[in-house]
């Protein structure tokens, strides 16, 4: 098979059609065969048959005439015998009749001898000889019949004459018969010669026919090879390749005949099929491209990151939903706008500078942080990546900008930074507060001892009271610091939020400037589980900040209630799901805060107030308090309009609030021995004095090891153990675990200034019955101790009575 490029340029030669060739060959062959057959059938065979028939007839004729001559000779001889007998005696009539009958039969036989349809020796000479022969036979027979008649009549003389005539006629008869035979044989010889000629003619004819075929066969084979076999082979090869799916094939068309035209048809068909296949492939590619485009469009539209196709001149060609969210705008509405319209003014120049590089394809932009202005004016922070996309020919098409919204990340980072600061402050405050509380515990304790000692003068007791109040304020400051650091051991008790708010509002109305108009709106009375003091302090701090924001007076509006909070807000601010959220909204119409100030309001010690008017802990403490209660806090502020701070606090499922009332110190009703374990001598001393004052026997240990040793020495003499949580060598938890392991019935009270070891459940696991916060008051200590010692004694007495 020749390749297409080598064949298409060859024009087919004009040629006689294959049908004409086949018909011609068949006609010539048929003509030769027909001529030969006709010649043999019409000439050779009839002539040979005729010659054979003539030979047979000649043979029969010769046989018959020879037989006839013999019969005549026999009859003559017989009659001569009869004649001799007749001379002696009369011949019997029957004998004569028999012989006459015999001669008549010979005569009839002679008449019947005629060549029939043989054309044997059909010449006048032969006819004459035959006529003469027949005449001679008839004459001999006539003589013999006459002789027999003469014998019958007894006329011997006539008989002899006729017999002699018969003899004389018999010799010419033989000659005539021989002559006829010779003519017939000569005719037969001629016929045989003609037969040989016919045989030679037939042989020549067949030889010529054979030679023609021998000579013509290679030519015919060559002709058929070129015109039929080779084209058919080409078709076979081509069709096999087409069957295998190869359409890039064409059949060489050499001759303009049937197969040539068929080949041309085949080539046109394969060309059409190639075109259709190419169209199908293009359609498939187009379909795949469209599918890819659809997938790209879907991925583009549904991508979780912002995607934008931007023309080289900065025009937005297409943006996805996420990009719209980042911009805070409808994607379709901003297509066609300039990209820089939505860039933060401070970042526009940076964008423009980087864009020129990207548009020229010099270097892509990767993860640079830029700010964008949303439709509501807020700022979105995003990581931007820009790369130039090109057409298939390499020319620039557009720039693909990828924006990853980092606003939330930045917020979390700020919160983390806030938490980190608070953690540092907490570490500092926790360490200070412990020692500070120990000191204050000693001061408060001794001051109360002095105040409770009736032996002292009123002046001393008043001084002691002043010392105690100052120490209590110090303790509150310590608690504030711990609350700020979220390290305080705030109380977990349900309380009515409306009462706390109302108390705070009452306080504010009494103490704030009259120009500040305080409004309170409460729709509900939610119950909060937590520390009401901390909540009240946070609310008071917010009110103070609002007042300070309105130096010339204004409206302080406090709105409280239960609000519906959507799931996204709960998730983002770690609010528990499916729990009603109480909100306290503190709003003022003061000076407001710019964004840069707003971004730092929760930072500890950050304040815009004068140095003597603020500590910078108000909002920070409120933030810590709210977070400790599982809630969150938001601030919305506009310069010149005002500020709104909203507290979100999860509601408690407790519906009843137990009211607590103060009571006098409880004196010991039974003699009991208490072991006070604290590494601080002042605390051991004042606790010992307080408990002894309450009527208890008190022993002390400077740390956990000493306490354990004391208990090992005499366990039954100790009824209660008060253990400080933070001690060197062995802390309070480990000390309690070891004591509880050997003395599980011994009640223990955990005293702590700030330490919060995983909640009360962990304390109960190591055997603590109660926790008391330092610095504890005389009243608090007496009530806690009395709750276990009196009960335990009561239980012991009940057991003894049983």
């Amino acid at each position, binding site marked *: 098979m020749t390749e297409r490029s080598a064949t298409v340029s060859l024009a087919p030669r004009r040629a006689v059609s294959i049908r004409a060739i086949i018909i011609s060959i068949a006609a010539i062959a048929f003509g030769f065969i027909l001529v030969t057959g006709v010649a043999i059938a019409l000439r050779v065979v009839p002539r040979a048959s005729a010659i054979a028939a003539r030979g047979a007839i000649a043979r029969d004729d010769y046989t018959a005439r020879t037989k006839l001559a013999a019969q005549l000779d026999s009859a003559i001889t017989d009659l001569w015998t009869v004649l001799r007998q007749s001379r002696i005696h009369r011949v019997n009539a029957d004998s004569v009749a028999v012989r006459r009958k015999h001669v008549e039969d010979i005569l009839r036989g002679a008449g019947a001898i*005629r060549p029939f349809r043989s054309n044997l020796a059909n010449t006048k000479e032969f*006819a004459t000889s035959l006529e003469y022969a027949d005449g001679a036979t008839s004459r001999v027979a006539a003589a013999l*019949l006459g002789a027999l*008649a003469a014998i019958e*009549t007894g006329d011997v003389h*006539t008989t002899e004459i006729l017999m002699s005539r018969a003899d004389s006629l018999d010799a010419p008869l033989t000659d005539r018969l021989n002559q006829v035979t010779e003519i017939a044989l000569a005719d037969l010889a001629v016929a045989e010669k003609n037969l040989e000629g016919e045989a030679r003619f037939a042989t020549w004819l067949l030889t010529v026919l054979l030679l023609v075929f021998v000579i013509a066969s290679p030519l015919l084979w060559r002709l058929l090879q070129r015109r039929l076999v080779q084209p058919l082979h080409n078709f076979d090869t081509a069709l096999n390749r087409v069957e295998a799916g190869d359409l890039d094939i064409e059949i060489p068309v050499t001759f303009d005949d049937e197969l040539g035209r068929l080949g041309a048809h085949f080539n046109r068909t394969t060309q059409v099929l190639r075109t259709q296949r190419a169209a199908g492939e293009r359609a498939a590619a187009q379909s795949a491209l469209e599918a890819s485009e659809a997938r790209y469009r879907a991925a583009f539209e549904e991508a979780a990151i912002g995607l934008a196709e931007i023309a080289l001149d900065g025009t937005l060609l297409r943006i996805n939903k996420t990009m719209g969210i980042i911009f805070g705008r409808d994607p379709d509405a901003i297509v066609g706008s300039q990209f820089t319209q939505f860039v933060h003014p401070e970042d526009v120049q940076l964008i423009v500078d980087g864009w020129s590089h990207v548009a020229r394809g010099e270097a892509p932009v990767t993860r640079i942080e830029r700010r964008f202005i949303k439709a509501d004016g807020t700022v979105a922070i995003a990581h931007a990546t820009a790369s130039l996309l090109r057409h298939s020919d390499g020319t620039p098409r557009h720039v693909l900008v990828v924006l990853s919204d980092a606003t939330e990340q930045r917020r979390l980072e700020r919160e983390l930074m806030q938490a980190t600061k608070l953690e540092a402050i907490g570490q500092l405050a926790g360490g200070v507060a412990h020692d500070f509380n120990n000191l204050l515990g000693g001061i408060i304790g001794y001051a109360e001892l002095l105040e409770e000692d009736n032996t002292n003068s009123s002046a001393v007791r008043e001084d002691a009271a002043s010392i105690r109040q100052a120490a209590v304020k110090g303790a509150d400051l310590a608690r504030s610091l711990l609350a700020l650091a979220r390290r305080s051991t705030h109380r977990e008790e349900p309380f009515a939020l409306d009462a706390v708010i109302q108390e705070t509002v009452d306080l504010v109305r009494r103490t704030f400037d009259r120009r500040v108009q305080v409004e309170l709106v409460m729709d509900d009375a939610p119950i909060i589980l937590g520390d009401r003091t901390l909540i009240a302090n946070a609310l008071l701090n917010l009110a103070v900040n609002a007042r300070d924001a309105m130096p010339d007076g204004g409206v302080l509006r406090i709105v409280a209630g239960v609000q519906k909070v959507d799931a996204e807000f709960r998730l983002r601010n770690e609010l528990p799901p499916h729990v009603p959220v109480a909100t306290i909204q503190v709003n003022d119409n003061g000076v407001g805060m710019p964004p840069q100030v707003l971004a730092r309001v929760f930072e500890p010690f950050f304040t815009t107030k004068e140095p003597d008017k603020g500590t910078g802990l108000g909002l920070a403490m409120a933030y810590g308090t709210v977070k400790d209660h599982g809630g969150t806090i938001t601030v919305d502020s506009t310069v010149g309009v005002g500020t709104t701070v909203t507290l979100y606090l999860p509601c408690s499922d407790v519906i009843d609030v137990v009211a607590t009332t103060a009571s006098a110190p409880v004196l010991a009703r039974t003699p009991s021995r208490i072991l006070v374990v604290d590494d601080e001598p002042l605390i051991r001393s004042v606790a010992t004095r307080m408990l002894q004052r309450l009527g208890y026997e008190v022993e002390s240990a400077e740390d956990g090891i000493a306490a354990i040793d004391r208990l090992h020495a005499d366990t039954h003499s100790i009824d209660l153990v008060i253990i400080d949580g933070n001690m060197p060598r062995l802390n309070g938890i480990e000390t309690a675990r070891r004591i509880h392991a050997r003395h599980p019935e011994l009640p223990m009270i955990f005293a702590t200034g700030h330490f919060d070891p995983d909640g009360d459940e962990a304390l109960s696991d190591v055997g603590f019955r109660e926790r008391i916060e330092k610095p504890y008051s005389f009243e608090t200590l007496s009530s806690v101790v009395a709750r276990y010692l009196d009960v335990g004694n009561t239980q012991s007495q009940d057991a003894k009575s049983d």
Partner: protein
Amino acid sequence: MRPYLGGTLVQFRAIVSIVPIRNPRVWFAIVVVVLAAAVSCRSERTSVMRVGDAIPRNVKEPTLLDAVRPLLVDGIEPRIDIIPWSASASDLGIGESEQADTFIADPSIVAVVGHAGSKGTLLTKPMYREAGMPLIVPTATAVAIGDPASGVFTLAPPDNVIGAFLVDEAVDHLHARRVGVLHVADPYGDGVRDGVAERLRARGDSLVGSAALSGRECETDGLPMDAIVRAFLQRVRPDAVIIAMPQGPTWCAIRRFVAEQPDITVITSDSYAYTDGAPLTSVERAHLHSLVFWTPGNDSITQRFVARSRVVFKRDPDAGQALSYDAFRLIKTAIREGNVTRASISTWLQQLGTPGHPAFQGITGPIDFKTSRKSILHLQALSDSVRMPPAKQ
């Protein structure tokens, strides 16, 4: 249809001068159409039905065909032509089969009349039968010839019928009591003899004797015939003898019989016709009765035939010529009635004498092939007969 072109051209010119057509192309088209019509008319060739004359002829003398051709070929469609004998050596009697082959090979020949004798007819009968060629045999009388079913029709009655007729005439009219037969030893002579013997047996009598001869007994000196006649008379002692031999031996035998037995009655069959070439004395003629197939009638057809024969032959036609003429007329009539093939002519001939197909009225009498034509047989006392001109054998 033969168009008269001269007249056509004249008419054409007249039409051209009258019809107001001046466009040469129109006239050319008209001429083409007219010529095409003329050629088509011209191409309608006339049909000629040919009949073979299988009666051997001697080209030196006129034949029956010369006499009857004007009577048969009349130009009426379809025309009829008669193809004469053309085989060589016809005078020696060996061209019968060759002539039959010639006729059979010519597809235009639809029927054949002939052959002259029983020998030649029997020789060619199978050939005509195989070829489906109807053959009307006018004079041959061999019993084996007549076979209408195979297309061979004889106008003369067969030999046995002739023999029977001669017996009836000899016994009933000539009052013969002892009838003998002298005949040639060939199918014809044997047939007559058998017919005589059969008829005598039928009549309660018997053939008193017969003798077969070669026909050459009268050559040279007639000595064999003398001996044979004497022996025949001595052995048979007939009062009437029927001779069925050719012309020459018959004449010779008649003379010997009359010489040996003056009161004998000699009856010759159809093979003998008295001529001037074989003169008989009045005594001899007085004993002679001869069988004839036909005597001329007075009808116009016969008279035209006789007149035509007299012009050609210078004498009256004999019975054989009359039968041959009837044979040609039969075929002509068959063709004119629409039978133009060999098969249809055979069928037409076979149907003669059947209801709806009356017998053909020939100059020799009514012709059909259902029964032998015994009616044409007539025994003529030569003493009363009209001398006929001599005819060539």
